[in-house]
């Protein structure tokens, strides 16, 4: 619910065109603004790479301590034949696990928020479990679901993702403004209607916050799960094997691929958020 404001005029930062909003600006002018907004970040990134490149030579660092960016790029191209399929498999594990964990977390959240006693009994456990280093269970998942099956990695990811999703969605469904519920009651709305029209929209921002945390966790879960064994054409195995062969340029190349996937994954979720909940404070500009 928006805060009441004192003055009787539209809040600043209103982005929806209305009777008093300025005329729409041209696409070219907006593209220029976007470029200007990102320019400093791009400059810093490129400068960082250049500095890294020259610092390695200047300090005389060994290739196995810190390879140059150019060497990492070369390794990436040289090993593309193995690294790209590896990244693809790891990504499938991460996405699969994310889907399973998010689905399960959301379902349990709906059940717990519907039944107050279930929530009171389960939520403390869920919060406690969230503090457990769940990644330590990876070898057990490998044992249960087959070390060579992608399902074992998906299950590691799913467990990792489950708790933040469940806790956040439960909060989103239950932390509803009391007067919003009273308003709905005054219309004699059913619990089902209140769920659909108030609780679920209220939970969406919480869901996306959880999903953004979960995308990062899903890649960590998949890669670390792979460290404990499995098929070779996955990022985790490529990292372990190249490191033990002292080919650290290849290790870095695999890490760069993992990082790139993580960023793309996060941006996809952030984009979905903008698309689906443009009304929320975390997304909208100004007010």
């Amino acid at each position, binding site marked *: 619910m928006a805060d009441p404001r*004192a*003055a009787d005029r*539209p809040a600043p930062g209103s982005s*929806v065109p209305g*009777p008093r909003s300025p005329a729409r600006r041209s696409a070219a002018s907006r593209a220029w603004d976007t470029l200007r907004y990102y320019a400093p970040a791009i400059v810093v990134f490129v400068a960082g790479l250049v500095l890294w490149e020259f610092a390695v030579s200047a300090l005389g660092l060994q290739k196995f301590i810190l390879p140059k960016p150019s060497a990492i790029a070369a390794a990436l191209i040289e090993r593309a034949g193995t690294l790209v399929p590896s990244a693809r498999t790891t990504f499938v594990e991460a996405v699969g696990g994310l889907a399973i964990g998010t689905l399960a977390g959301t379902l349990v959240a709906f059940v717990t928020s519907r039944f107050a006693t279930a929530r009171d009994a389960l939520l403390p456990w869920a919060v406690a479990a969230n503090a457990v280093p769940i990644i330590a269970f990876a070898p057990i998942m490998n044992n249960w679901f087959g070390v060579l099956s992608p399902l074992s990695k998906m299950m590691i990811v799913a467990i990792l993702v489950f708790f933040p999703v469940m806790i956040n969605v439960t909060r989103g469904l239950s932390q509803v*403004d009391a*007067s919003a519920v009273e308003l709905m*009651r005054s219309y004699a709305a059913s619990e089902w209607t209140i769920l659909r029209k108030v609780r679920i929209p209220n939970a969406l921002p919480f869901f996306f916050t959880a999903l953004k945390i979960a995308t990062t966790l899903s890649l960590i879960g998949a890669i670390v799960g792979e460290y404990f064994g499995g098929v070779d054409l996955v990022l985790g195995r490529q990292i372990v094997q190249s490191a033990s062969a002292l080919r650290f340029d290849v290790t870095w190349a695999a890490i760069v691929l993992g990082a790139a996937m993580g960023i793309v994954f996060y941006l996809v979720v952030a984009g979905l958020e903008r698309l689906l909940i443009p009304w929320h404070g975390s997304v909208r500009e100004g007010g």
Partner: protein
Amino acid sequence: MTESAPAVVTIAGVDKTFEVAGQAGTQALQGIDLEIRRGEFVSLIGPSGCGKSTLLRLIGDLTTPSAGTVTVNGKTAHRARLDRDYGMVFQAPVLFDWRTVEENVALPLEILGRPKSERIARAREMLELVELQGFLRHHPYQLSGGMQQRVAIARALAFEPSIQLMDETFGALDEMTRERMNSEVLRIWERTGTTIVFVTHSIPEAVFLSSRVVVMSARPGRISQVIEADLPRPRGFETREQPRYFGLVTQVREALHGPQAQVATVGGPGSPARTAAEGAVG
């Protein structure tokens, strides 16, 4: 309003005690009898803790009495709520940010299962009534506090409930916006002929708006006096400058402060007490 108009709300012998586990309950309301007739504008005023909001919530079946009965349109308050006899406006506008202004106003009609074309037409009509027809596609967070409250009023009017319950609706607004909103709510009331029960802690607001002012006292909450606010209508800017208006404001103030105020008019040692009490209310 005329005496002959039928009763919309009849409250008879109502007590309300809030039970706290392991403790003696807090008595919020005691022996409340009140009848509100069709088309009346009744304000409930009193110091904080006098149970005026609780009384409003009892009428709206958002809480139930410990003793006594609340009858609305000849039914129990519960039945009346299920029949959608109430429009509610709270102190906070309680708008949903994920809905446009138009969709917020159409919400009760949506719950009532009215067809979409009717919902849109009705929402637009109501937004015109509160002079927000230019903001259909805006979202609540893009509006000021006063505009948000007008959307909430439009929403409460949208499905033509027989009674409007307003709980300190303008309490969070600044004085100037509040006076403008008061005139606006009167204009709407006069046009629609709805019945309004209005909780406030502002004496001028209660006098300016109401046909009757119900003055309550605290601990336990009781009705101490009911004052007919017989100012001519339509009321406007000049109403606030009439001698009768000031007379009614004084009458309500004295009713609120009870015996202390009378001691003060005589003068003597009671005077400081009156000043202190006046500072506490209104």
